[in-house]
């Protein structure tokens, strides 16, 4: 282009001189516009820096009514933030006490009464085992014992009856009767049968009684087992309760801290607002910078347009004679 322009100017010196004058004026305007842009950019930068500075985060601290507090510091060198929380002495004591209690409770494997329950459960278990063991034993001996006791009650009367019959039969001269049908006499047979039935009945009753007792033993054993289970549940509940108490204590120990952290919320809101401000400041700074750049770009654009238009006129003037450019 420049070659052509030069060629043009060469070819059209008058025009080229007129044109050159015009170009000088344009250039002057151009230069002025460029200066305005730079100024605007510079001032926008300064403003942006000011805004940036003003919008920077300011560390803050919170102190609750109970004495706990929150604070932060900014490393002046690195700018890194550090935060501190603190509890009041009473809160700290409370926390320590609660945590100590919680630790005690959580680590306590023998809460109060648990031993007694354990002992009772053990005794219930042993008693249950004893009864269960007895219930599981062979009934023969017990049946024999019951049978013997029943027979001990029945036998004297049977003996009396036997003796009476013997006496009666003796007086009747029938003492030595032996029959194929009855063994002895019909009365002897009847009495022996009755006594045998009594023995059978006693035997059956002793079996039933022994079974009933066995059942009773089992039930008692079961009851003891249930009692042992209940006691174990109680013991477990006691342990759970102790654990819960420990956990509750543990939770309670953090209440002051939570209160402190709760109290931090307003500070956090303020910090957030400050951060918003900072962001806003940065926004302003950016906008300001951008506006300076816009001014700069506008000025340069105006200068460019101006230069362009002027150049176009020049060139049109140049090339208008020659043709289009």
């Amino acid at each position, binding site marked *: 282009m420049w070659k052509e322009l030069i060629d043009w100017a060469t070819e059209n010196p008058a025009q080229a001189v007129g044109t050159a004058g015009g170009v000088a004026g344009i250039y002057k305007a151009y230069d002025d516009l460029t200066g305005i842009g730079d100024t605007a950019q510079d001032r926008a930068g300064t403003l942006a820096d000011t805004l940036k500075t003003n919008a920077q985060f300011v560390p803050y601290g919170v102190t609750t009514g109970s004495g706990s507090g929150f604070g932060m510091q900014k490393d002046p060198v690195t700018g890194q933030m550090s935060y501190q929380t603190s509890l009041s002495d009473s809160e700290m004591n409370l926390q320590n006490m609660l945590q100590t209690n919680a630790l005690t409770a959580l680590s306590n494997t023998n809460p109060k009464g648990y031993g007694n329950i354990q002992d009772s459960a053990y005794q219930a278990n042993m008693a249950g085992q004893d009864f269960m063991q007895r219930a599981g034993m062979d009934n023969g001996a017990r049946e024999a014992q019951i049978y013997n006791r029943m027979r001990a009650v029945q036998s004297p009367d049977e003996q009396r009856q036997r003796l009476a019959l013997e006496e009666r039969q003796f007086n009747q*001269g029938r003492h*030595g009767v032996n*029959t194929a*049908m009855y063994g002895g*006499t019909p009365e002897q047979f009847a009495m022996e049968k009755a006594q045998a039935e009594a023995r059978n009945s006693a035997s059956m009753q002793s079996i039933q009684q022994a079974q009933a007792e066995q059942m009773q033993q089992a039930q008692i054993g079961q009851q003891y087992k249930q009692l042992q289970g209940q006691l174990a549940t109680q013991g477990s509940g006691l342990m759970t309760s102790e654990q819960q108490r420990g956990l509750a204590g543990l939770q309670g120990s953090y209440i002051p801290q939570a209160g402190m952290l709760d109290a931090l919320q307003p500070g956090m809101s303020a910090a957030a607002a400050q951060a918003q401000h900072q962001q806003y400041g940065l926004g302003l700074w950016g906008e300001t910078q951008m506006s300076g750049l816009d001014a700069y770009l506008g000025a340069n654009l105006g200068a460019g347009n101006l230069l362009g238009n002027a150049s176009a006129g020049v060139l049109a003037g140049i090339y208008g004679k020659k043709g289009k450019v």
Partner: protein
Amino acid sequence: MASQLQNISIVAPGFKGINTEDSPLAQDASFAEIADNTVIDQRGRMASRKGRTLLTTTATELGSAAVNAIGKYKDDAGNSKIFFAGNNKILSNTVTIADETPGSYTITANEWKIVNFNDNLYFFQSGHEPLVYNNSLGAVTKMSAISGAAAVTSAIYGNEAIGSWGRLWTADMAANKSKIYWSDLLLGSQWSGGSSGSIDITDAWPNGYDEIVGLAAHNNLLIVFGRHSIITYSGADSPASMAIQDTITGVGCVGRDTIQYTGTDLLFVSDTGLRSLGRTIQEKSMPLRERSLNVRSQITEYIQEETLSYRSVYSPENSFYLLHFQSQDVTYCFDLRQELEDGSFRVTRWTPTVFDSFFRDKDDGTLYIGTVDGINTYSDYYDNGAAYTFKYKSPSLAFGDSSRLKMLKKIKATLVGGNGAEATLSWSYDFEAAGDSATFAVGIQSTGYYGASEFNVAEYGFGASSTRTTINASGSGEIIDISFEMPILGSIVSLQELNILATIGKVT
């Protein structure tokens, strides 16, 4: 001055039988001191007993032994057979004796009790397995071989057996003298099972140890005769329930074969003689009576001296109960027509008889007599063709005053029958054994029968002839004994009357 001739008339002398128990002087003249081979006939007179007629012709199987037991089999079908025991055999046939002893069966004694029960004839003897005969078997068979026999062991080898209340009962075993066994109902060979049983009455004897001698069913009671006591059981129709009804202490039974039923009484012989248990309907206790009071001492002596067995029989046809002492060959004949005021029976004595056993056939009333000759019947007036002696001795006669001297003048005797035998009438004074005697012939009367005897030869008559004879007696004494004796030679003789005429003298 001599006193008037005094007459003592003894009508039917000795018709009250022998009396050796009362004082001779105080006795009723109707008693007799001796009445041998006599009976009290149907008219209340002392008469000669019947003899024995031997039925047996061939006694080879019997050998020289006596017939010791006789029984008769009879069943519903009318079959009957006489069995008897002797020479350690079971025999049959009264004429030609046959051996009925089962094979492989050893008999060591002849004291069998033969019982007819439920169409079977049972033989029981101590120490021997019971034997059975019936028409189906056709032979005497060991009880254990009978179909259905049960528990036929030595335990039931009793010496006594009866068939009552539908069962056989046995007792008096060699090893057990106090046990009674009863068979199953109607099954005499089944001694176990069913309703069979036993009773040991060792503890029931009323007076210590005793032994069962015999059994009897009387008045619906089981009478258990011990040697020294008696127990009566009621309810024997259900033996398991029977119970003592009464006991009698001090009176027992000397021998199984002395027990006889008379319908109203149960006769048996105790140590002191013949006894009876009366039949009672309402009274609880049966009356026990002594039936041989008038010969008590004699019988007691015979009982004490008996070394073999007692035999007896009751013959309602002859109205007597015979008690035979086998080793002493003496038989007492108790007349059962009526009893004397003291409850005793009129009794006479038979000796010698050589009787060994008796059996009355209930079918025809025949009285069988077992002897060494075989089987006889009580019939006719010979002892197997031989004569036997009728003896009578009066009680001692004092003519009302034993202090005065008596001088016998005449003895008038009236006899019925005798038929030609020579009789001897003797008298003695003051208990002296020897005295005076006179013989006379008894009249003969041959009786002709219409249509049987020869016309104009035989003579119609009224049966036995009567003889009235007068003997002139001599001597004197305070007490007079009169005796009469004559052989029985095929004809009955009855002593109808004795008239004794004596002069009563001074007091001595």
